[in-house]
């Protein structure tokens, strides 16, 4: 446990000290600000009352969580696919302890960042998030999935650059998928199987929990995603160690 805490603390510091990580806080707020301007424009000049900001802000914040996969994948590349790998492997730290500590540090950072962004959207943009306990549950779940996906990205990329590229693509896909149900204004127009899939993807399940829409169903979906990503990361992680 002492070793875990030592490595965890090291990577928590590194996550918070890296100025590039501030981007994941700033970018969704920039987008939300743009949505607010658009909503104001629609209301002031076209007299259209929309709920565009609310509809987009939550998926935007939750979708951005997935960019944090780069934290874990990046640090693992930096330390485990470089000469420092030998330094770490020759130490009395079990590799699984190292991996878990890096993931836990990434998890803490992404939950913290998510909470900050949520707080700013409440104060600056009057976004209504409902029950904050559920918001926290969703943030914990999505950031956990994000860290597991970071391990998978690390495993299947050869260096930090390709890992960062894949993390961004992954983040963009997850955000796109999160916004898709919102853009499809009338979900009943879509075929039922597509509706079901869209409503049970990680981010849309998170939105449903927050929006009190099929909450139990959506929490179950999040748990299934956690199980899938954890199993994949565990199996792939074992292969990596061998």
């Amino acid at each position, binding site marked *: 446990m002492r070793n875990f805490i030592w490595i965890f603390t090291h990577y928590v510091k590194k996550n918070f000290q890296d100025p590039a990580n501030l981007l994941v806080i700033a970018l969704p707020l920039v987008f939300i600000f743009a949505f607010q301007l658009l909503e104001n424009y629609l209301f002031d000049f076209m007299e259209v009352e929309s709920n565009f900001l609310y509809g987009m802000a939550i998926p935007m914040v939750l979708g951005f969580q997935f960019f944090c996969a780069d934290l874990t994948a990046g640090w693992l590349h930096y330390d485990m696919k470089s000469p420092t790998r030998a330094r770490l492997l020759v130490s009395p*730290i079990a590799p699984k302890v190292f991996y878990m500590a890096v993931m836990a540090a990434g998890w803490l950072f992404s939950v913290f960042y998510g909470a900050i962004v949520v707080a700013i959207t409440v104060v600056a943009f009057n976004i209504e998030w409902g029950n904050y306990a559920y918001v926290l549950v969703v943030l914990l779940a999505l950031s956990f999935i994000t860290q597991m996906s970071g391990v998978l990205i690390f495993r299947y990329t050869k260096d930090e650059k390709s890992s960062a590229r894949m993390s961004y693509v992954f983040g963009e896909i997850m955000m796109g998928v999160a916004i898709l149900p919102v853009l499809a204004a009338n979900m009943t127009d879509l075929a039922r199987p597509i509706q079901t899939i869209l409503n049970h993807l990680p981010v849309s399940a998170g939105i449903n929990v927050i929006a009190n829409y099929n909450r139990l169903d959506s929490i179950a979906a999040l748990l299934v995603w956690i199980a899938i990503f954890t199993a994949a990361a565990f199996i792939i992680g074992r292969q990596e160690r061998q």
Partner: protein
Amino acid sequence: MLATMKNVTKRYGNQTVVNQLDLTVKSGEILGLLGPNGAGKSTTINMLCGLINADEGEVMLFEQKQHTKNLSTRHELGLVTQDITLFSGLNVVENLRYVGGLYGLRGAELNARVSDVLDFIELRDHRKKKPKQLSGGMQRRLNIGCALLHQPKLIIMDEPTVGIDPQSRNHILESVKKLAANGTTVIYTSHYMEEVEAVCDRIIIMDLGRIIAQGTVNELIKNTGNESTVILTAIAPSPALTRALEEVPGVRQVNMAGNKYTIISAANSGNISRITELAGQHGGFAGITEQARSLEDIFLTLTGKSLREGNGYA
């Protein structure tokens, strides 16, 4: 014995990298491990460190079976890798503190060890610098410092002086001697024969995954003492001269580097006059000397390869 390897074999695919290796490391000695590239030195070191498992045979370290999952031996083991294994985002002190923490050092004990190591590697004045701001020699010293924090019983140094200036090299060699004087066992690999001769109590020469000779420098010279080395500086070196020299009775090996021929022949064979005669017939020669055998000559005789020059073994 601090470490033993018995009948150890390691294969990568169809290639046998280490073949039925028997090796012992005595407590308190500085053991030199020599061999051309591909001799199996790094694989041997990796097995000793528990970074990889042997396919066959037994690796024992500190009276425990060594393998990738045995973490208890790691507290007594320090590895100085050939590559610089420093965390580039951390400064000198932070690197030492982080690595010390990996070995369970905390608080006052960690501070004291970091301070001792800073003095040992003479980087106190540079303690706030990041690795990129240090010279190659300083980075090497910090690399060594990271392996010393937990005061290991055995330190394995894999070519710790690659690419550094003579001053830093001397500092490192002195450090190795100091460590051994304090009772630490050191396994030292290098491409520089003079370093190995200067610091090692015992030398193991490996080639093609096997040990081909071992002993002190004097023992190695004595055991291969039935040969002498002649250095011929030719005016017009040519393949024809090389072939002619190879055919001289008693000559066992001819190596050419530039206009210099290193000829290994049976001792007291009296063929020096025949060599000068042949050199005269092939454009003449600028000089000829018969040398006392060095570790480099022994290595050349045993492996047929130069450690640093030619044949792609540099």
